């Protein structure tokens, strides 16, 4: 008996709600956007160097600078460079086609300029030891395509769901913890793939 799509997404929603609860208690909250989508935003990871873009932006900005000057203001806190900010957003959306959760992600600067996949990878890579890099490859960080986000309608990177069903099956078979839903197991794999971005609280799963 093949369960129909609606009951599957109902299952996703139930698992998602329990995941949100877990994520809140592990100090790493996700948000439910609608019945088939949960979202997490991570700000302020170290900015990768975008030399050509940046120098282009800056020189143009200089060009546009005018004799703008303001009143002397003692009340403004001098700010250190805040342009390090990179906004990385993760959306887990249930795919009716593949009947599995699909990870959509995107990263952009404070201006809204998107990061390329290579730039994002450089952000994610951080100072990882080799072994993690290998694990990431094994679980498919390279298996990324670009697709329109099903809700927002703008291009997002997505981890191709063709292997997710097999992965979920494997994880479910391995798990002996009834409280660990397939979604949670899969999220823990995703957390490892995107480590060290605080996608999930990994320590929670390493008990």
């Amino acid at each position: 008996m093949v369960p129909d799509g609606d009951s599957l997404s109902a299952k996703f929603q139930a698992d998602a709600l329990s995941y949100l609860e877990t994520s809140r208690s592990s100090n790493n909250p996700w948000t439910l956007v609608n019945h088939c989508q949960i979202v997490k935003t991570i700000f302020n990871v170290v900015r990768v160097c975008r030399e050509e873009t940046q120098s282009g932006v800056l020189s143009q900005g200089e060009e546009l600078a005018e004799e703008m000057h303001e009143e002397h203001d003692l009340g403004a806190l001098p700010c250190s460079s805040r342009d390090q900010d990179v906004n990385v957003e993760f959306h887990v959306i249930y795919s009716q086609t593949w009947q599995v959760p699909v990870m959509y992600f995107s990263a952009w600067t404070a201006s809204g300029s998107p990061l390329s996949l290579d730039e994002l990878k450089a952000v994610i890579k951080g100072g990882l030891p080799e072994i993690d890099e290998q694990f990431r490859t094994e679980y498919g960080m390279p298996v990324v395509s670009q697709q329109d986000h099903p809700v927002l309608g703008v291009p997002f990177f997505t981890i191709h769901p063709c292997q997710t069903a097999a992965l979920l099956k494997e994880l479910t078979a391995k798990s002996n913890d009834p409280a660990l839903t397939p979604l949670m197991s899969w999220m823990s794999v995703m957390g490892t793939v995107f480590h060290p971005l605080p996608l999930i609280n990994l320590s929670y799963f390493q008990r």
Partner: protein
Amino acid sequence: MSTPDHHPILQFDPLSSAVDPTFWHALSRNKIEVYRLDDAARAITGYYAPYHAASGHQQRGAVSQLVVGAARLAVTAQSFDSEDDSNSRKGMNGGGGVVAPGVLYNTNTIEEFKKLDKSAVFAQVADRIWESITSGAAVADPTLLTRFILLTFADLKKYKFWYWFGFPALLPFAPVRVRAVRPVREVWSARQVEALRTGVRGVGPFFLVKVASADDDDTLSVRGLGEWDEVVRHDESGDGGVTVGFVDPSGQPAHPGWPLRNFLILLQTRWKVDAVRVVCYRETLSSTTTTPTSIVLDLTLPTPSTTPTTTPKCVGWEKNSMAKLSPRSADLGPLMDPRQLADTAVDLNLKLMRWRIVPTLQLEKIATTKCLLVGSGTLGCHVARTLLAWGVRHITFIDNGTVSFSNPVRQPLFTFDDCLHGGRPKAQAAADALKRIFPGVHATGINLAIPMPGHYVPSARDATTSAVERLTALVEMHDAVFLLTDSRESRWLPTLLGKSLGKIVINSALGFDTFLVMRHGMRQCASSASSSSHPTPTPSEPATTTTTTTTRTTPPPPALGCYFCNDVVAPADSLSDRTLDQQCTVTRPGLSSLASATAVELLISILNHPLGPNAAPPPPTPTPPHPSDPTPTPLGLVPHQIRGFLTHYTHLLVTGHAYDKCTACSPTVLELYAAHGAAFVLDAIEDPTYLERVTGLKQMQMATEHLDLEWDVEDE
């Protein structure tokens, strides 16, 4: 209270704009569909939220540490939603965030963006904020205190956006002084903090706090500004001070966020407050978190003797990343430019194949291989499309024909329109079509007649010489040459040049229901036949699975032959007695795509083999190899020749060795060409027997009269 000057001046953490990519998408759509050339000011909505300790995260090396993130005011696609939306007017949106009313000035040109009287725009908004303070409108709707400005110019052709935010803050009559800064926990009990947390959600971005005397009752309530009289006038507790609060987007441990500035002006102007306790409300995730959290400030406000009648001075243009008062820009090309999107999609799709099927797939090598297609007809069109599918980005067509009415149905890069008015030059039409299919391709069409033996035109000697030179230069600048012309003799010169210059040469020819696809043998290096000494292209990786260790000790295998190696006659004019059209229509139509696809796949197999074009063909076997037999490399065998037979739907793999009397690739020919260049080619073209004489083929012919090997499927 009269001598507060020894207290430090309070500094406010400026807002940092955070533009969501969806904002730029929505602005572009509105510009095209709604605003068009109308550059009138538009109402938009910005969003900020209480600073969230977990949102500031930063990696330094392998260590993950919390840092204080910027105080953000965000704009998203929702920022354009109607201002009448009742939810937004209340001041709080779903996620505990706060809305700020903004005004958008989108100019039509970059010049207008530059020329826009920004001071006037800023002053206007400052006037409106001041007016909302003096009229009391800000008491009823405190979001009016956070009114902001956004100037934009959308360069929709380049997907580039110029923008500048202004967050106007009215300057106080004299600096605000801070008497104390404490974490909220040191001021209030856990119960009171919890009451604050739940209370803020229901009230709004700016609020009053009513605290019972700390000694007896442990309660706290959050009230709207409209309840000032009730909360403050009748407050009999403590020192009679005023306690207020605001939703604070800043996470600075000792500084409040920017939105407090206009609120303080409201307190001073409307209620003559000269001392106030302010709670800067920020979110904490759990009680155990030790990261920055809500703080409480005790402030002294300088109060003027009379309320000013005009708008106070005002600051708040956002600085750019260089801390200058200057616009910023965003480049949305990767998300909006169809060309960039196509580029990324094609690239990622091939990578998907690599990940799923062939982890060692040399995609980068394939993508950077420059392919020269000699012939832009049926085979050329199909080969180009298959190369494109493999991610090859540099394709050059050579042809000297024009598109005729019979072509488009068989030659998939041409359409009916290409045949009109005498027909477009084929090479150019093919290159243009390729770019329409995928703009990221670097495609060129060269209108060039290939000099051919036996096609000598005495008057065209100069033209022939320059054609030889042109073709030589073209072969030189490419990595792989496909021979796809419809005559045998037109393949002679490119064969010679490819061999001479060490290029990969793939040859494809069609019979009626048979085809031939072959790679030409590479020039043997004098020193040795070992893998390391081959010039082009360098294998990028050593073989992961060495099939045998005996290769070094055995003599090098004989070199592979070329298209002409089995010939016992020199190429000559085979075209005179039949027209081109007759010749191309005598093949089964499906044959050309089979042959072309096979030719491209052969190139890909070569590029992926650790030895590249020097890969050995499969050894001869008594029975044809079975498809389930293991192959030494992931993409499989790299045969020398593939002969396809449509009658039996089968392929035969054949290996043919180089012939030392070959008219196109023998050492004699290569040496003569090296010594005399174009002059040698002209000799060969002028005199039909020249090649046979210099190679010794003539003598051979006499010796082996009538022996016809008949291997070339294209002939007869």
